[in-house]
Protein backbone atom coordinates (compact mmCIF):
# COMPACT_ATOMS: atom_id res chain seq x y z
CA UNK A 1 0.00 0.00 0.00
CA UNK A 2 1.17 3.52 -0.70
CA UNK A 3 2.58 5.62 2.12
CA UNK A 4 0.36 7.83 4.28
CA UNK A 5 2.59 10.91 3.83
CA UNK A 6 1.56 14.37 5.03
CA UNK A 7 -1.77 14.33 6.86
CA UNK A 8 -2.77 18.01 6.94
CA UNK A 9 -1.75 21.57 7.80
CA UNK A 10 -0.87 21.50 11.50
CA UNK A 11 -0.14 25.11 12.41
CA UNK A 12 1.38 28.39 11.40
CA UNK A 13 3.83 30.54 13.34
CA UNK A 14 2.87 34.17 12.78
CA UNK A 15 4.90 37.24 13.79
CA UNK A 16 3.28 40.03 15.77
CA UNK A 17 4.95 43.14 17.22
CA UNK A 18 2.51 43.41 20.14
CA UNK A 19 1.98 39.98 21.65
CA UNK A 20 -0.56 41.13 24.30
CA UNK A 21 -2.74 42.80 21.71
CA UNK A 22 -2.50 39.81 19.35
CA UNK A 23 -3.42 37.33 22.09
CA UNK A 24 -6.41 39.46 23.09
CA UNK A 25 -7.57 39.59 19.45
CA UNK A 26 -7.08 35.88 18.64
CA UNK A 27 -8.61 34.74 21.94
CA UNK A 28 -11.57 37.11 22.17
CA UNK A 29 -12.44 38.10 18.60
CA UNK A 30 -11.44 35.00 16.65
CA UNK A 31 -12.23 32.90 19.72
CA UNK A 32 -9.25 30.57 19.76
CA UNK A 33 -8.21 28.80 22.96
CA UNK A 34 -4.86 29.82 24.51
CA UNK A 35 -2.96 26.66 25.45
CA UNK A 36 0.49 28.01 26.29
CA UNK A 37 2.41 31.19 26.87
CA UNK A 38 6.00 32.25 27.41
CA UNK A 39 7.82 35.59 27.24
CA UNK A 40 7.77 35.91 23.46
CA UNK A 41 5.26 33.30 22.26
CA UNK A 42 1.63 32.35 22.68
CA UNK A 43 0.08 29.04 21.60
CA UNK A 44 -3.52 28.84 20.44
CA UNK A 45 -5.92 26.33 18.90
CA UNK A 46 -9.46 26.04 17.58
CA UNK A 47 -11.78 24.71 20.28
CA UNK A 48 -12.34 21.33 18.60
CA UNK A 49 -8.68 20.59 17.89
CA UNK A 50 -7.04 17.86 19.93
CA UNK A 51 -3.50 19.12 19.30
CA UNK A 52 -1.75 21.62 21.53
CA UNK A 53 -1.70 24.40 18.93
CA UNK A 54 -2.71 25.38 15.42
CA UNK A 55 -1.35 28.94 15.72
CA UNK A 56 1.82 30.20 17.38
CA UNK A 57 2.11 33.96 17.82
CA UNK A 58 5.75 34.97 17.84
CA UNK A 59 6.74 38.38 19.21
CA UNK A 60 8.86 40.07 16.53
CA UNK A 61 9.64 43.60 15.33
CA UNK A 62 7.47 43.12 12.27
CA UNK A 63 4.48 41.06 11.10
CA UNK A 64 4.29 38.14 8.67
CA UNK A 65 4.76 34.40 8.58
CA UNK A 66 7.61 32.76 10.46
CA UNK A 67 6.91 29.19 9.33
CA UNK A 68 4.17 26.74 8.50
CA UNK A 69 3.93 23.17 9.74
CA UNK A 70 2.35 20.07 8.27
CA UNK A 71 1.35 17.11 10.41
CA UNK A 72 2.84 13.69 9.68
CA UNK A 73 1.35 10.81 11.66
CA UNK A 74 4.12 8.22 11.51
CA UNK A 75 7.74 8.83 12.53
CA UNK A 76 9.17 6.77 9.64
CA UNK A 77 7.11 8.90 7.26
CA UNK A 78 8.93 11.94 8.64
CA UNK A 79 12.23 10.25 7.70
CA UNK A 80 10.95 9.26 4.28
CA UNK A 81 9.66 12.76 3.48
CA UNK A 82 12.84 14.40 4.83
CA UNK A 83 14.86 12.14 2.50
CA UNK A 84 12.70 13.17 -0.44
CA UNK A 85 13.32 16.84 0.32
CA UNK A 86 17.07 16.20 0.70
CA UNK A 87 17.10 14.27 -2.59
CA UNK A 88 15.52 17.32 -4.23
CA UNK A 89 18.67 19.26 -3.25
CA UNK A 90 17.18 21.10 -0.28
CA UNK A 91 18.89 20.84 3.09
CA UNK A 92 16.80 19.57 5.99
CA UNK A 93 17.40 20.30 9.65
CA UNK A 94 16.06 17.86 12.24
CA UNK A 95 14.82 18.76 15.72
CA UNK A 96 13.92 16.64 18.73
CA UNK A 97 10.48 16.76 20.34
CA UNK A 98 10.03 20.00 22.31
CA UNK A 99 12.94 21.72 20.59
CA UNK A 100 11.22 24.07 18.13
CA UNK A 101 8.20 24.91 20.30
CA UNK A 102 6.31 23.92 23.41
CA UNK A 103 4.64 20.50 22.89
CA UNK A 104 6.33 20.13 19.50
CA UNK A 105 6.94 16.67 18.14
CA UNK A 106 9.93 15.50 16.11
CA UNK A 107 10.43 18.06 13.35
CA UNK A 108 12.09 18.24 9.94
CA UNK A 109 12.66 21.83 8.76
CA UNK A 110 13.54 23.13 5.32
CA UNK A 111 13.08 26.17 3.13
CA UNK A 112 10.63 25.67 0.29
CA UNK A 113 11.53 26.97 -3.22
CA UNK A 114 8.95 29.70 -2.49
CA UNK A 115 11.14 31.02 0.34
CA UNK A 116 8.87 29.82 3.17
CA UNK A 117 10.18 27.87 6.15
CA UNK A 118 8.28 24.59 6.28
CA UNK A 119 8.24 22.16 9.18
CA UNK A 120 7.07 18.57 9.00
CA UNK A 121 6.11 17.47 12.48
CA UNK A 122 5.19 14.15 14.03
CA UNK A 123 3.78 13.73 17.53
CA UNK A 124 2.73 17.15 18.73
CA UNK A 125 1.27 17.01 22.25
CA UNK A 126 -2.48 16.48 22.51
CA UNK A 127 -4.54 18.53 24.95
CA UNK A 128 -8.07 17.47 23.92
CA UNK A 129 -10.99 19.55 22.75
CA UNK A 130 -12.45 20.41 26.15
CA UNK A 131 -15.26 17.88 25.75
CA UNK A 132 -15.47 14.64 27.68
CA UNK A 133 -14.64 11.47 25.78
CA UNK A 134 -17.68 9.93 27.51
CA UNK A 135 -21.17 11.12 26.47
CA UNK A 136 -19.96 14.52 25.15
CA UNK A 137 -22.33 17.35 24.20
CA UNK A 138 -21.89 18.55 20.58
CA UNK A 139 -20.04 21.70 21.64
CA UNK A 140 -18.82 23.46 24.77
CA UNK A 141 -21.22 26.12 26.05
CA UNK A 142 -18.68 28.84 26.77
CA UNK A 143 -17.41 29.65 23.28
CA UNK A 144 -16.73 33.28 22.46
CA UNK A 145 -16.05 35.26 19.30
CA UNK A 146 -16.10 33.42 15.99
CA UNK A 147 -14.82 30.22 17.69
CA UNK A 148 -13.84 28.23 14.60
CA UNK A 149 -13.49 24.53 15.46
CA UNK A 150 -10.19 24.15 13.60
CA UNK A 151 -7.55 25.46 11.22
CA UNK A 152 -8.26 24.87 7.53
CA UNK A 153 -5.62 26.18 5.10
CA UNK A 154 -2.87 28.70 4.38
CA UNK A 155 -2.41 30.95 1.36
CA UNK A 156 1.13 32.01 0.40
CA UNK A 157 2.84 34.20 -2.17
CA UNK A 158 5.87 33.38 -4.29
CA UNK A 159 7.54 34.46 -7.53
CA UNK A 160 7.57 31.09 -9.28
CA UNK A 161 4.23 29.40 -8.69
CA UNK A 162 4.98 26.71 -11.30
CA UNK A 163 8.21 25.79 -9.52
CA UNK A 164 6.82 25.55 -6.00
CA UNK A 165 3.72 23.71 -7.23
CA UNK A 166 5.90 21.08 -8.90
CA UNK A 167 7.88 20.79 -5.65
CA UNK A 168 4.69 20.31 -3.61
CA UNK A 169 3.34 17.74 -6.06
CA UNK A 170 6.49 15.77 -6.80
CA UNK A 171 8.37 15.93 -3.51
CA UNK A 172 5.69 16.48 -0.85
CA UNK A 173 3.00 14.39 -2.66
CA UNK A 174 0.31 17.06 -2.71
CA UNK A 175 -2.45 16.93 -5.33
CA UNK A 176 -3.38 19.89 -7.51
CA UNK A 177 -7.11 20.66 -7.28
CA UNK A 178 -7.33 23.99 -9.12
CA UNK A 179 -5.08 26.41 -10.95
CA UNK A 180 -5.34 29.87 -12.47
CA UNK A 181 -3.36 29.78 -15.69
CA UNK A 182 -2.04 32.93 -17.42
CA UNK A 183 -2.58 33.40 -21.15
CA UNK A 184 1.12 32.57 -21.68
CA UNK A 185 0.62 29.20 -19.91
CA UNK A 186 2.31 29.78 -16.55
CA UNK A 187 0.50 29.26 -13.27
CA UNK A 188 -0.72 32.45 -11.56
CA UNK A 189 -2.19 30.58 -8.61
CA UNK A 190 -2.44 26.94 -7.54
CA UNK A 191 -4.47 25.05 -4.93
CA UNK A 192 -2.99 21.92 -3.37
CA UNK A 193 -4.38 19.33 -0.97
CA UNK A 194 -3.56 16.30 1.14
CA UNK A 195 -6.97 16.03 2.88
CA UNK A 196 -9.39 15.61 -0.07
CA UNK A 197 -10.54 19.20 0.50
CA UNK A 198 -10.09 21.90 -2.18
CA UNK A 199 -6.88 23.14 -0.52
CA UNK A 200 -4.56 22.77 2.43
CA UNK A 201 -2.12 25.25 0.92
CA UNK A 202 -2.36 27.63 -2.02
CA UNK A 203 0.14 29.82 -3.85
CA UNK A 204 -0.42 33.12 -5.59
CA UNK A 205 2.11 35.03 -7.67
CA UNK A 206 3.92 37.64 -5.54
CA UNK A 207 7.14 38.14 -3.60
CA UNK A 208 8.92 35.03 -2.29
CA UNK A 209 8.16 34.27 1.35
CA UNK A 210 4.95 36.33 1.25
CA UNK A 211 2.00 35.48 3.47
CA UNK A 212 -1.47 36.16 2.15
CA UNK A 213 -3.72 34.64 4.80
CA UNK A 214 -4.37 31.89 7.32
CA UNK A 215 -7.88 30.40 7.26
CA UNK A 216 -9.91 28.72 9.96
CA UNK A 217 -12.82 26.41 9.23
CA UNK A 218 -16.39 27.20 10.27
CA UNK A 219 -19.18 24.70 9.70
CA UNK A 220 -21.56 26.75 7.59
CA UNK A 221 -22.41 29.97 5.79
CA UNK A 222 -24.45 31.24 8.72
CA UNK A 223 -21.27 31.19 10.82
CA UNK A 224 -19.67 33.61 8.35
CA UNK A 225 -22.44 36.12 9.03
CA UNK A 226 -21.82 35.73 12.78
CA UNK A 227 -18.10 36.25 12.13
CA UNK A 228 -18.81 39.42 10.14
CA UNK A 229 -21.01 40.71 12.98
CA UNK A 230 -18.19 39.90 15.43
CA UNK A 231 -15.64 41.81 13.31
CA UNK A 232 -17.93 44.81 13.01
CA UNK A 233 -18.71 44.78 16.74
CA UNK A 234 -15.03 44.75 17.69
CA UNK A 235 -14.02 47.29 15.05
CA UNK A 236 -11.92 44.72 13.19
CA UNK A 237 -11.21 45.75 9.61
CA UNK A 238 -13.04 43.49 7.13
CA UNK A 239 -11.12 43.02 3.91
CA UNK A 240 -13.75 41.16 1.88
CA UNK A 241 -16.93 39.15 2.34
CA UNK A 242 -18.94 37.31 3.40
CA UNK A 243 -18.65 36.13 -0.17
CA UNK A 244 -18.14 33.12 -2.38
CA UNK A 245 -14.96 31.99 -4.10
CA UNK A 246 -15.05 30.62 -7.62
CA UNK A 247 -11.91 28.56 -7.00
CA UNK A 248 -12.64 26.01 -4.21
CA UNK A 249 -16.37 27.04 -4.27
CA UNK A 250 -15.91 27.89 -0.61
CA UNK A 251 -17.43 30.87 1.15
CA UNK A 252 -15.16 33.18 3.11
CA UNK A 253 -14.76 36.31 5.17
CA UNK A 254 -11.38 38.12 5.24
CA UNK A 255 -10.17 40.48 7.91
CA UNK A 256 -6.90 41.64 9.47
CA UNK A 257 -5.41 40.94 12.86
CA UNK A 258 -4.15 44.03 14.76
CA UNK A 259 -0.62 43.49 13.38
CA UNK A 260 -1.84 43.42 9.77
CA UNK A 261 -1.79 39.67 9.10
CA UNK A 262 -4.80 38.64 7.02
CA UNK A 263 -7.17 36.05 8.50
CA UNK A 264 -10.04 34.17 6.91
CA UNK A 265 -12.91 32.10 8.17
CA UNK A 266 -13.95 29.65 5.49
CA UNK A 267 -16.62 27.03 4.85
CA UNK A 268 -17.93 24.85 2.01
CA UNK A 269 -15.85 23.45 -0.82
CA UNK A 270 -16.05 19.89 -2.04
CA UNK A 271 -14.51 16.43 -1.76
CA UNK A 272 -11.57 15.76 -4.11
CA UNK A 273 -10.54 12.20 -5.00
CA UNK A 274 -6.86 11.45 -5.75
CA UNK A 275 -7.84 10.52 -9.32
CA UNK A 276 -9.91 13.67 -10.00
CA UNK A 277 -8.78 16.13 -12.66
CA UNK A 278 -7.88 19.66 -11.52
CA UNK A 279 -10.10 22.62 -12.41
CA UNK A 280 -8.55 25.31 -14.63
CA UNK A 281 -9.28 29.04 -14.45
CA UNK A 282 -8.20 31.21 -17.34
CA UNK A 283 -6.56 34.59 -16.77
CA UNK A 284 -9.66 36.40 -18.07
CA UNK A 285 -11.74 34.76 -15.33
CA UNK A 286 -9.25 35.32 -12.50
CA UNK A 287 -11.52 37.84 -10.79
CA UNK A 288 -14.38 35.38 -10.63
CA UNK A 289 -12.01 32.60 -9.53
CA UNK A 290 -11.18 34.65 -6.46
CA UNK A 291 -14.49 36.40 -5.74
CA UNK A 292 -17.40 34.77 -7.50
CA UNK A 293 -19.93 37.55 -6.86
CA UNK A 294 -17.77 40.58 -7.60
CA UNK A 295 -16.09 38.98 -10.61
CA UNK A 296 -13.25 41.49 -10.72
CA UNK A 297 -9.72 41.26 -9.39
CA UNK A 298 -9.56 43.23 -6.16
CA UNK A 299 -6.21 45.06 -6.18
CA UNK A 300 -6.11 45.44 -2.42
CA UNK A 301 -6.80 41.75 -1.94
CA UNK A 302 -4.14 40.78 -4.45
CA UNK A 303 -1.43 43.21 -3.38
CA UNK A 304 -1.72 43.61 0.39
CA UNK A 305 0.18 40.87 2.18
CA UNK A 306 2.64 40.36 4.97
Amino acid at each position, binding site marked *: *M*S*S*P*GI*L*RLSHATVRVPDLELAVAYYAEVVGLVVTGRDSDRAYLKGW*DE*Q*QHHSLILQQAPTYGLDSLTF*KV*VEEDELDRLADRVTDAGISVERFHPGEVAEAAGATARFRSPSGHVIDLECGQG*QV*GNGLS*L*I*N*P*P*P*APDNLIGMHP*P*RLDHIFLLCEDVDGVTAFFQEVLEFRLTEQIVADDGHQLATFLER*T*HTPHDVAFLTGPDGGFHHLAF*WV*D*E*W*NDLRTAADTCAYHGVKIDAGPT*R*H*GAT*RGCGLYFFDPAGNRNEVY*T*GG*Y*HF*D*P*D*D*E*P*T*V*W*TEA*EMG*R*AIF*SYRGQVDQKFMSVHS
Partner: protein
Amino acid sequence: MGIFRLSHVDITAPDLELAAAYYTEVLGLDISERTDDGNGERIFFKCWDERDHHCLAIRHDTRVGIDRFAFKVDHPGDLEAFEARIERAGVPVQRVAAGEETGQGESIRFEIPSGHEMELVYDVHKVGGRLPLINPAPIVPNLRGIAPPRIDHLLVQAEEVPEAARFFQDVLDFRLTEQLLDGGGHQTIAFLERSAKPHDIAFVQGTNGALHHFSFWLDDWDHVRRAADLLAYHGVTIDIGPTRHGLTRGSTIYFFDPMGTRNEVFSGGYRPDPDFPTITWTNDRAGRAVFYYEGVLNERFASVHT
Protein backbone atom coordinates in the same frame (compact mmCIF):
# COMPACT_ATOMS: atom_id res chain seq x y z
CA MET B 1 -2.85 4.65 1.64
CA GLY B 2 -5.62 2.07 1.50
CA ILE B 3 -9.35 2.68 1.71
CA PHE B 4 -10.26 6.37 1.52
CA ARG B 5 -14.04 6.62 1.22
CA LEU B 6 -17.40 4.97 0.60
CA SER B 7 -17.86 4.51 -3.15
CA HIS B 8 -21.35 3.08 -3.67
CA VAL B 9 -24.23 1.17 -2.12
CA ASP B 10 -26.02 -1.48 -4.19
CA ILE B 11 -29.61 -2.11 -3.12
CA THR B 12 -32.66 -3.93 -4.50
CA ALA B 13 -36.21 -2.67 -5.10
CA PRO B 14 -39.35 -4.23 -6.57
CA ASP B 15 -40.29 -1.20 -8.67
CA LEU B 16 -37.45 0.37 -10.63
CA GLU B 17 -39.62 3.07 -12.23
CA LEU B 18 -40.82 4.24 -8.84
CA ALA B 19 -37.25 4.14 -7.55
CA ALA B 20 -36.05 6.17 -10.53
CA ALA B 21 -38.79 8.77 -10.01
CA TYR B 22 -38.08 9.13 -6.29
CA TYR B 23 -34.28 9.15 -6.45
CA THR B 24 -34.20 11.69 -9.31
CA GLU B 25 -37.15 13.97 -8.46
CA VAL B 26 -37.17 13.94 -4.65
CA LEU B 27 -33.60 13.11 -3.69
CA GLY B 28 -32.29 14.80 -6.82
CA LEU B 29 -29.70 12.29 -8.04
CA ASP B 30 -28.73 11.87 -11.68
CA ILE B 31 -29.07 8.59 -13.56
CA SER B 32 -25.71 7.69 -15.10
CA GLU B 33 -26.68 4.37 -16.67
CA ARG B 34 -29.45 1.76 -16.98
CA THR B 35 -28.52 -1.85 -17.70
CA ASP B 36 -30.31 -5.13 -18.23
CA ASP B 37 -27.69 -7.85 -18.39
CA GLY B 38 -26.50 -10.94 -16.56
CA ASN B 39 -26.47 -8.93 -13.34
CA GLY B 40 -30.19 -8.16 -13.67
CA GLU B 41 -32.05 -4.97 -14.49
CA ARG B 42 -30.32 -2.06 -12.79
CA ILE B 43 -30.22 1.73 -12.54
CA PHE B 44 -27.03 3.55 -11.55
CA PHE B 45 -27.31 6.92 -9.81
CA LYS B 46 -24.84 9.63 -8.85
CA CYS B 47 -24.94 12.98 -7.07
CA TRP B 48 -24.47 16.15 -9.10
CA ASP B 49 -21.00 16.92 -7.70
CA GLU B 50 -19.66 13.38 -7.92
CA ARG B 51 -17.35 12.61 -10.80
CA ASP B 52 -17.50 8.82 -10.41
CA HIS B 53 -19.98 6.66 -12.35
CA HIS B 54 -22.30 5.94 -9.42
CA CYS B 55 -22.82 6.12 -5.67
CA LEU B 56 -26.04 4.09 -5.71
CA ALA B 57 -27.12 1.11 -7.79
CA ILE B 58 -30.64 -0.27 -7.59
CA ARG B 59 -31.31 -3.76 -8.94
CA HIS B 60 -34.80 -5.00 -9.68
CA ASP B 61 -35.81 -7.72 -7.28
CA THR B 62 -39.05 -8.84 -5.69
CA ARG B 63 -37.54 -7.99 -2.28
CA VAL B 64 -36.14 -4.80 -0.80
CA GLY B 65 -32.61 -5.28 0.48
CA ILE B 66 -28.92 -4.66 0.04
CA ASP B 67 -26.66 -6.53 -2.39
CA ARG B 68 -23.37 -5.03 -1.22
CA PHE B 69 -21.53 -1.80 -0.48
CA ALA B 70 -18.21 -0.71 -2.00
CA PHE B 71 -15.30 1.32 -0.69
CA LYS B 72 -12.69 3.01 -2.81
CA VAL B 73 -8.92 2.48 -2.44
CA ASP B 74 -6.43 5.07 -3.67
CA HIS B 75 -3.71 2.82 -5.09
CA PRO B 76 -4.11 0.02 -7.65
CA GLY B 77 -1.83 -2.28 -5.59
CA ASP B 78 -4.16 -1.94 -2.59
CA LEU B 79 -6.58 -4.53 -4.00
CA GLU B 80 -3.92 -7.23 -3.99
CA ALA B 81 -2.66 -6.20 -0.54
CA PHE B 82 -6.17 -6.33 0.92
CA GLU B 83 -6.92 -9.62 -0.81
CA ALA B 84 -3.93 -11.16 1.00
CA ARG B 85 -4.86 -9.62 4.36
CA ILE B 86 -8.52 -10.62 4.13
CA GLU B 87 -7.63 -14.18 3.16
CA ARG B 88 -5.13 -14.31 6.03
CA ALA B 89 -8.06 -13.39 8.29
CA GLY B 90 -9.78 -16.55 7.03
CA VAL B 91 -12.28 -14.82 4.74
CA PRO B 92 -12.52 -16.00 1.10
CA VAL B 93 -12.12 -13.23 -1.51
CA GLN B 94 -13.76 -13.15 -4.91
CA ARG B 95 -12.01 -11.23 -7.68
CA VAL B 96 -14.21 -9.40 -10.14
CA ALA B 97 -12.34 -8.76 -13.39
CA ALA B 98 -12.43 -5.47 -15.26
CA GLY B 99 -15.43 -5.45 -17.60
CA GLU B 100 -17.55 -7.74 -15.42
CA GLU B 101 -19.18 -4.94 -13.44
CA THR B 102 -20.81 -1.80 -14.82
CA GLY B 103 -19.09 1.53 -14.26
CA GLN B 104 -15.90 0.26 -12.71
CA GLY B 105 -12.76 -1.78 -13.24
CA GLU B 106 -11.37 -4.68 -11.26
CA SER B 107 -12.60 -5.20 -7.70
CA ILE B 108 -12.57 -7.69 -4.83
CA ARG B 109 -15.65 -8.90 -2.95
CA PHE B 110 -15.88 -10.69 0.39
CA GLU B 111 -18.26 -11.31 3.26
CA ILE B 112 -17.66 -9.36 6.45
CA PRO B 113 -18.44 -10.85 9.89
CA SER B 114 -21.87 -9.17 9.93
CA GLY B 115 -22.86 -11.13 6.82
CA HIS B 116 -22.79 -8.20 4.37
CA GLU B 117 -21.02 -8.42 1.05
CA MET B 118 -18.36 -5.75 0.81
CA GLU B 119 -16.41 -4.66 -2.24
CA LEU B 120 -13.14 -2.77 -2.66
CA VAL B 121 -12.52 -0.99 -5.93
CA TYR B 122 -9.76 1.26 -7.26
CA ASP B 123 -10.99 2.29 -10.69
CA VAL B 124 -14.51 3.69 -10.73
CA HIS B 125 -15.15 5.18 -14.15
CA LYS B 126 -15.06 8.95 -14.26
CA VAL B 127 -18.14 10.42 -15.88
CA GLY B 128 -17.61 13.93 -14.51
CA GLY B 129 -19.68 16.16 -12.26
CA ARG B 130 -22.23 18.70 -13.44
CA LEU B 131 -19.66 21.52 -13.37
CA PRO B 132 -17.10 22.08 -16.13
CA LEU B 133 -13.39 21.81 -15.30
CA ILE B 134 -12.66 25.19 -16.88
CA ASN B 135 -13.91 28.36 -15.14
CA PRO B 136 -16.76 26.58 -13.33
CA ALA B 137 -19.59 28.40 -11.57
CA PRO B 138 -19.75 27.41 -7.89
CA ILE B 139 -23.29 26.05 -8.25
CA VAL B 140 -25.55 24.30 -10.72
CA PRO B 141 -28.74 26.35 -10.95
CA ASN B 142 -32.17 24.68 -10.83
CA LEU B 143 -31.14 21.34 -9.37
CA ARG B 144 -34.16 19.14 -8.68
CA GLY B 145 -35.06 17.90 -5.23
CA ILE B 146 -32.73 17.75 -2.24
CA ALA B 147 -29.72 17.44 -4.56
CA PRO B 148 -26.94 16.44 -2.14
CA PRO B 149 -23.45 16.92 -3.62
CA ARG B 150 -22.22 13.45 -2.62
CA ILE B 151 -22.75 10.25 -0.64
CA ASP B 152 -21.41 10.29 2.91
CA HIS B 153 -21.77 7.02 4.84
CA LEU B 154 -23.90 3.98 5.58
CA LEU B 155 -25.13 2.24 8.71
CA VAL B 156 -25.62 -1.52 8.76
CA GLN B 157 -26.71 -3.98 11.41
CA ALA B 158 -24.67 -6.75 13.00
CA GLU B 159 -25.51 -9.41 15.58
CA GLU B 160 -22.02 -9.02 17.03
CA VAL B 161 -20.94 -5.41 16.63
CA PRO B 162 -17.51 -5.90 18.29
CA GLU B 163 -16.63 -8.66 15.83
CA ALA B 164 -17.54 -6.53 12.81
CA ALA B 165 -15.75 -3.47 14.23
CA ARG B 166 -12.59 -5.48 14.99
CA PHE B 167 -12.51 -6.80 11.43
CA PHE B 168 -12.78 -3.25 10.09
CA GLN B 169 -10.06 -2.01 12.45
CA ASP B 170 -7.61 -4.89 12.21
CA VAL B 171 -7.98 -6.03 8.61
CA LEU B 172 -9.25 -2.93 6.76
CA ASP B 173 -7.42 -0.25 8.82
CA PHE B 174 -10.55 1.69 9.81
CA ARG B 175 -10.39 3.85 12.94
CA LEU B 176 -13.00 3.73 15.71
CA THR B 177 -14.28 7.28 16.35
CA GLU B 178 -17.24 6.58 18.66
CA GLN B 179 -18.95 3.65 20.33
CA LEU B 180 -21.98 2.92 22.47
CA LEU B 181 -21.52 0.40 25.28
CA ASP B 182 -24.41 -1.32 27.01
CA GLY B 183 -24.61 -1.79 30.78
CA GLY B 184 -22.39 -4.86 30.57
CA GLY B 185 -19.69 -2.99 28.61
CA HIS B 186 -20.65 -4.71 25.35
CA GLN B 187 -20.26 -2.62 22.20
CA THR B 188 -23.68 -2.15 20.56
CA ILE B 189 -22.84 0.69 18.15
CA ALA B 190 -19.47 1.35 16.47
CA PHE B 191 -18.58 4.29 14.21
CA LEU B 192 -15.61 3.81 11.89
CA GLU B 193 -13.81 6.09 9.46
CA ARG B 194 -11.17 6.22 6.74
CA SER B 195 -11.79 9.77 5.49
CA ALA B 196 -11.24 12.04 8.52
CA LYS B 197 -14.98 12.24 9.23
CA PRO B 198 -16.97 10.90 12.20
CA HIS B 199 -17.94 7.86 10.11
CA ASP B 200 -17.82 6.24 6.72
CA ILE B 201 -19.61 3.17 8.06
CA ALA B 202 -21.28 2.36 11.34
CA PHE B 203 -22.56 -0.88 12.86
CA VAL B 204 -25.56 -1.12 15.15
CA GLN B 205 -26.64 -4.28 16.94
CA GLY B 206 -29.38 -6.05 15.01
CA THR B 207 -29.91 -8.54 12.20
CA ASN B 208 -26.87 -9.72 10.26
CA GLY B 209 -26.89 -8.61 6.63
CA ALA B 210 -29.41 -5.81 7.19
CA LEU B 211 -29.16 -2.21 6.00
CA HIS B 212 -30.27 0.52 8.38
CA HIS B 213 -29.70 3.50 6.08
CA PHE B 214 -27.32 5.19 3.70
CA SER B 215 -26.69 8.87 3.91
CA PHE B 216 -25.88 11.81 1.64
CA TRP B 217 -23.89 14.90 2.58
CA LEU B 218 -25.36 18.41 2.77
CA ASP B 219 -23.18 21.48 3.31
CA ASP B 220 -25.36 23.28 5.81
CA TRP B 221 -27.99 22.79 8.53
CA ASP B 222 -30.22 25.11 6.54
CA HIS B 223 -30.12 22.55 3.71
CA VAL B 224 -31.45 19.93 6.15
CA ARG B 225 -34.45 22.19 6.75
CA ARG B 226 -34.92 22.61 3.01
CA ALA B 227 -34.79 18.81 2.63
CA ALA B 228 -37.54 18.49 5.26
CA ASP B 229 -39.70 20.97 3.31
CA LEU B 230 -39.22 19.01 0.07
CA LEU B 231 -39.96 15.66 1.74
CA ALA B 232 -43.16 17.05 3.26
CA TYR B 233 -44.13 18.56 -0.12
CA HIS B 234 -43.72 15.20 -1.87
CA GLY B 235 -45.50 13.26 0.87
CA VAL B 236 -42.41 11.23 1.74
CA THR B 237 -42.52 9.46 5.12
CA ILE B 238 -40.13 11.20 7.49
CA ASP B 239 -38.71 8.88 10.14
CA ILE B 240 -37.25 11.57 12.39
CA GLY B 241 -35.77 15.05 12.17
CA PRO B 242 -34.54 17.60 11.46
CA THR B 243 -32.52 16.93 14.57
CA ARG B 244 -29.00 16.51 15.93
CA HIS B 245 -27.04 13.38 16.72
CA GLY B 246 -24.98 13.11 19.90
CA LEU B 247 -22.86 10.51 18.12
CA THR B 248 -20.98 12.34 15.30
CA ARG B 249 -22.58 15.73 16.31
CA GLY B 250 -24.13 15.76 12.84
CA SER B 251 -27.42 17.41 11.88
CA THR B 252 -29.84 15.11 10.16
CA ILE B 253 -33.20 14.05 8.77
CA TYR B 254 -34.23 10.42 8.12
CA PHE B 255 -36.88 9.34 5.66
CA PHE B 256 -37.95 6.32 3.62
CA ASP B 257 -37.82 5.78 -0.10
CA PRO B 258 -41.15 4.48 -1.56
CA MET B 259 -39.96 0.88 -1.23
CA GLY B 260 -39.03 1.24 2.43
CA THR B 261 -35.27 1.72 2.35
CA ARG B 262 -34.24 4.36 4.88
CA ASN B 263 -32.34 7.39 3.57
CA GLU B 264 -30.61 10.18 5.45
CA VAL B 265 -29.20 13.56 4.58
CA PHE B 266 -26.53 14.70 6.98
CA SER B 267 -24.42 17.77 7.71
CA GLY B 268 -21.78 18.77 10.24
CA GLY B 269 -19.60 16.47 12.29
CA TYR B 270 -15.91 17.01 12.87
CA ARG B 271 -12.50 16.10 11.48
CA PRO B 272 -10.75 13.32 13.42
CA ASP B 273 -7.01 12.79 12.87
CA PRO B 274 -5.75 9.18 12.88
CA ASP B 275 -4.63 9.75 16.50
CA PHE B 276 -8.10 10.94 17.58
CA PRO B 277 -9.21 9.35 20.88
CA THR B 278 -12.38 7.23 20.70
CA ILE B 279 -15.53 8.74 22.23
CA THR B 280 -17.65 6.41 24.34
CA TRP B 281 -21.41 6.67 24.99
CA THR B 282 -22.88 4.81 27.92
CA ASN B 283 -26.21 3.02 27.89
CA ASP B 284 -27.96 5.53 30.17
CA ARG B 285 -27.31 8.18 27.50
CA ALA B 286 -28.13 5.98 24.51
CA GLY B 287 -31.16 8.10 23.56
CA ARG B 288 -29.14 11.29 23.52
CA ALA B 289 -26.30 9.55 21.67
CA VAL B 290 -28.64 8.82 18.79
CA PHE B 291 -31.02 11.82 18.93
CA TYR B 292 -29.53 14.65 20.95
CA TYR B 293 -32.62 16.84 21.17
CA GLU B 294 -35.21 14.12 21.77
CA GLY B 295 -33.00 12.12 24.14
CA VAL B 296 -34.94 8.96 23.33
CA LEU B 297 -34.78 6.48 20.49
CA ASN B 298 -38.00 6.06 18.54
CA GLU B 299 -39.09 2.44 18.18
CA ARG B 300 -39.23 2.65 14.38
CA PHE B 301 -35.66 3.93 14.13
CA ALA B 302 -34.42 1.11 16.37
CA SER B 303 -36.29 -1.71 14.65
CA VAL B 304 -37.06 -0.95 10.98
CA HIS B 305 -34.39 -2.01 8.52
CA THR B 306 -34.13 -3.51 5.05
